[in-house]
């Protein structure tokens, strides 16, 4: 028996819609098996993971809080991936954005600076992330260096730089030697939407970003260029599109969004700069981008779903002593299934049963 791929005459739109659902279904089946191996009841574990967080308002808000950075980063990444360039260093751009914005918060601490501080911090965060993302983009455009490896290496550099700042020059003198800055002043904080809640202005900004990306990709020439350069580079050259310029543009946008997400996270839910501000948002956003089929609305839904797994994972750890790493395994398996199901959009799977002679050429 042999599996053979047959190219479809045109991409199947039905499967494009249902493939993420098939992938989620397959992931849940696989996770049930994993839970059983870990000696936990799969049904109750799945309940804690996917149902419980949806039943109380605190967890629902928390899902939106976690989805905020995921969606914002993933929107930027989707532009890169549509243009067929690979920014996988969003985690680093997130951290650099957080650092760049925090600089202003640290410098204005305790002064009577006005309410301009927070918006300025957001701008600085976006600018920092964009500049940091332009390093791999420039290395790619000018020297032909792999943007994948350069952007990833810069994640480690950003991580170490943040660590240096909060252990060295920016450490809170009254912080009992903990590696953290002092709590940001109220003017340097992203306000919450409902008094006493956790949902903050960042969620609104994310929705605006989703709307802007929908318009950019669906209604503008630039959006069309991004798609063409990614899908048909030769056609794009004939069409006179400048692919180098697009690489710089998509990296700058995705870096800016990752940096914005970083400073919003620090000035919002966290409230100060410290190591470990990101539980791998920059990497999880890659999964969000693919699960959302590189489509802004899809990414919004996918971001909420992956945020659910973060919250569910935390609750499963508390309630059932399921290790937190299960969440990462879950996310990895999900990405595998998403990619596998995506293959169905372009190809038809056919099982061939050999009659006499096994044909050579496929494994």
């Amino acid at each position, binding site marked *: 028996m042999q599996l053979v791929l047959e190219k479809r005459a045109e991409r199947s739109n039905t499967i494009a819609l249902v493939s993420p659902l098939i992938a989620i279904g397959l992931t849940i089946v696989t996770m049930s098996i994993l839970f059983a191996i870990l000696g936990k009841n799969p049904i109750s574990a799945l309940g804690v993971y996917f149902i419980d967080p949806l039943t109380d308002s605190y967890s629902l808000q928390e899902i939106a809080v976690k989805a905020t950075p995921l969606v914002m980063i993933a929107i930027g990444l989707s532009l890169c991936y549509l243009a067929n360039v690979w920014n996988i260093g969003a985690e680093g751009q997130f951290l650099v954005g957080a650092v760049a914005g925090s600089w202003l918060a640290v410098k204005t601490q305790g002064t009577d600076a006005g309410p301009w501080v927070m918006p300025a911090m957001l701008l600085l965060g976006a600018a920092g992330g964009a500049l940091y993302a332009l390093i791999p983009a420039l290395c790619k455009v000018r020297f*032909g260096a792999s943007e994948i490896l350069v952007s990833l290496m810069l994640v480690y550099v950003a991580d170490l730089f943040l660590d240096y700042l909060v252990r060295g020059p920016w450490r809170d003198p009254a912080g009992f030697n903990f590696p953290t800055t002092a709590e940001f002043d109220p003017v340097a904080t992203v306000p919450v939407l409902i008094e006493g809640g956790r949902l903050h202005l960042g969620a609104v900004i994310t929705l605006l970003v989703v709307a802007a990306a929908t318009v950019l990709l669906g209604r503008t020439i630039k959006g069309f260029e991004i798609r063409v350069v990614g899908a048909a580079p030769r056609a794009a050259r004939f069409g006179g599109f400048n692919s180098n310029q697009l690489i710089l543009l998509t990296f700058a946008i995705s870096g800016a969004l990752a940096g914005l997400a970083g400073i919003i996270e620090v000035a919002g839910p966290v409230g100060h700069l410290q190591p470990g501000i990101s539980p791998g948002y920059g990497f999880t956003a890659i999964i969000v981008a693919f699960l959302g089929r590189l489509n802004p609305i899809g990414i919004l839904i996918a971001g909420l779903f992956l945020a659910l797994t973060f919250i569910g994972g935390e609750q499963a750890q508390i309630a059932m002593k399921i290790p937190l790493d299960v969440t990462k395994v879950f996310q990895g398996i999900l990405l595998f299934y998403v990619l596998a199901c995506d293959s169905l959009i372009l190809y038809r799977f056919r099982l061939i049963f050999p009659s006499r002679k096994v044909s050579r*050429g496929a*494994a």
Partner: protein
Amino acid sequence: MGLLEAIILSVLAASTPLLIAATGELVTERAGVLNLGVEGMMIVGAACGFGGAWLTGSTIIGALCGIVAGTLLSLIFAMMTLGLAVNQVATGLALTILGIGLSGLIGAGFVGEKITPAPHLYIPGLTDIPLVGRILFGEDAFVYFSLALVIGVWLFLYRTRTGLVLRAVGDNHVSAHALGYPVLRIRMFAVMFGGACAGLAGAYLPLAYTPFFIPGMTAGRGWIALALVVFSSWRPARLVVGAYLFGAVTILQLHAQGAGLGIPSQFMSALPYLATVIVLVLISRARTGGSTAPAALGTVFVPDR
């Protein structure tokens, strides 16, 4: 033992995992497959390698566990990219994300445990030669194995017919297919070889480098190994130079941190990563007259029947 001798010994130890992982990836890429999951396969190899050695007390069984774990993960990658024609970059990233989670899950039970590190060779007389004795005749078996592996891969790629076919598959899969070579099967074996090497390289870390397991202990070495393959221009001999160069950077920055030059330790720790970026830029810049990469690297191949 002098300081210089100690530095050279630790450079060799730091370079060995890079060399093993990069050699495996080189073969994979020569067959035209870009597997970005090296980091994931390495970290699972480290967890399984430590687990095997801790449970049985045997370094060899630990190393085998690492190899098996890396190979199994690479098989998932092969199924996806070769069987289902999925984008190799995305699948490699998925493999790394999965690997980091899996290693945490597997290794959770071993954190804080210690094992006896892999024994070092000792030949009376030879190993006792001052200066060069320990360096040439006093390493652990992995160091010698890694060099043998590179020589073996070089012989295979350039001196055997199968090696020639593998390179042909990596340069032009359509022609290779037309000549009747089983493109996907050859690529599958190449991917598995890469996985086995990555698993072994990961296992080296807890088995010989530091005798315990900590989550995330590969610390980007898998990615550096990928960069080394680019650095080597896909040639095994240059890989040795690259790996030892990077090992040297890693160790020298550690010594500089110890010497207390007044430079913040984080800046020194960032050196290997910055060096990777600089090397990638310089190497890519030097290649103005066309790339030396396998021509079909990273492209999907679906045989027509």
